[in-house]
């Protein structure tokens, strides 16, 4: 019972911090928007029949939008890791741990806060894509599934990054982890290009990369191209496994020092 109240209090704090730090929020939007606008537009000079043949759409931005939204959920990981490191550095974690609030409440609040921050990007990105001429279909169920996919992806990434940063009080660590992880995860998924382009070994990685699952679900919606429903199941399994690892690490290693 007290765990739920503690979770709610801590989650509320994370959400308030999102909108009180509007500048940081805008900066999180910038990266994926830059990708879809600049990178997306860079391929749009290709002959139209090539675009349709390779990407299934005459506007490459429509192809890369789901990939970038999926990739942008990696920022939830960096964010949750950052947030636990800061709480440790500024002593806030101590302040939480001298109360009877369970460690699980702290863990879940960080995950939920990061996922919320990640999802705020969705409408902004969709609006940017619309502005650049992507025709978004009206498919409410599809969008719900897409958002569910992004949520699961966010839960998975934020849990893993949180586990990695659980003992750290060095604010550089999350950024270093992000630098090492984020680009490879994007390039080895289908976020930018269809898997048919890839050599066999990269295809093998792309097929188990969770970013691919969320990308394909989104692409199914945007390009009106039906996808296998099991993708959502894979993502759920990824989220559950990451969360289990994160919780174990939190129980064992979330200490005041």
């Amino acid at each position, binding site marked *: *019972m*007290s765990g739920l*109240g*503690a979770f*709610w*209090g*801590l989650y*509320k*704090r994370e959400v*308030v*911090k999102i909108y*009180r*730090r509007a500048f940081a929020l805008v900066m999180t939007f910038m990266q994926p928007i830059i990708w879809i606008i600049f990178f997306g537009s860079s391929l749009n000079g290709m002959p139209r029949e090539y675009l349709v043949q390779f990407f299934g759409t005459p506007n490459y931005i429509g192809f890369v939008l789901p990939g970038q939204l999926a990739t942008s959920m990696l920022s939830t990981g960096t964010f949750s890791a950052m947030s636990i490191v800061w709480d440790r550095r*500024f*002593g*806030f974690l*101590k*302040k*939480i*741990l*001298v*109360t*009877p*609030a369970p460690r699980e409440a702290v863990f879940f609040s960080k995950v939920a806060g990061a996922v919320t921050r990640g999802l705020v990007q969705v409408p902004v990105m969709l609006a940017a894509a619309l502005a650049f001429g992507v025709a978004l279909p009206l498919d409410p169920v599809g969008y719900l599934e897409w958002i569910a996919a992004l949520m699961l992806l966010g839960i998975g990434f934020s849990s893993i990054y949180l586990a990695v940063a659980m003992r750290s009080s060095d604010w550089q660590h999350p950024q270093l982890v992000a630098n090492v992880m984020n680009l490879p995860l994007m390039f080895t998924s289908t976020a930018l290009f269809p898997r048919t382009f890839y050599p066999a070994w990269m295809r093998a990685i792309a097929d188990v990369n969770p970013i691919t699952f969320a990308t394909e679900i989104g692409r199914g919606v945007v390009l009106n191209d039906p996808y296998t429903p099991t993708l959502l199941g894979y993502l759920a399994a990824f989220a559950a496994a990451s969360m289990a690892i994160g919780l174990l690490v939190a129980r064992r290693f979330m*200490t*005041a*020092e």
Partner: protein
Amino acid sequence: MNGNAIEVLDLVKRYGNVTALAGVTFSVSRGEIFGLLGPNGAGKTTTIKILTGLTPPTSGRAYVAGFDVVRQPNEVKRRVGWVSSEVILDDDLNAWENLELQARLQGVRNWRERATELLKYFDLLQSAGRPVGGYSTGMRKKLEIATALLHSPEILFLDEPTIGLDVNARAMLWDLIRTVNREFGVTILLTTHYMEEADALCNRVAIINLGKIMALGSPAELKSSVGGEVVELEIERPVDLSALKRLPDVLDVAASDGKIRITVRKADETIPAIVKSLDFSAVKSLRVEKPTLDTVFMKLTGKRIEESHVDYRRFYAMIRRSRR
């Protein structure tokens, strides 16, 4: 277990090879203001960390509000408030939001009423809607104490409560600590390396150094343990000291190059007798030295508390030099 607020038995804490606490035993009665006085690294903060359940002891026992800190940490945590040496508040949140978070972490229902009462009491109600990042140091400290009192704890831990505060803010906080103790009926354990703070606030003080308690008692008891007060006279010419030495309250008389040092039990009461017992026209000046807790610390450890402190400015200057 008896009715003490805190009971600490032979507490030991080691971090790797470093012994932070080397067997500490003391107890704090309910309603008391108890001070742990000592230099940095003496083990004060480690003691608080163990008593608030933030870290387990290596060995020994500790009971807070009647509960074992190792076996019943949540029972302890529900009954204690903790104010760290550095103020820990969320600067992005306003006072209400900081209090609400604390309420939810402690499971306090109807927290708004209690929060309003505390904000009013601490004179923060007007500014409660502003993010606390814009508060002055004194306001932040007050809000942190209000936050720690929100769940009506039985015992409040104050870790170096006035470190980094200016003279006015310190005086304000001393008053506040006394009234919190009196009006809210909260037992207070505070740590400090300021002798005058321990002297002014605490009913009893434990002097702690290198993880050990060197002495424990009321400030008056501790000070009298070092052996009285000293009246120092500067004289122009030699005077006859025989009558002075016969005075009942005079413990010791030492004369050397134009000065006479008279050790007495209570200077204020003995000075008239001293004046009468010698040729006072030879006296140029009179000075009274009363022992402070620093005198006690010096007698016990051979060092002053401030000297045992790491001098950070010198330390950083040294690092800067070595970088060049």
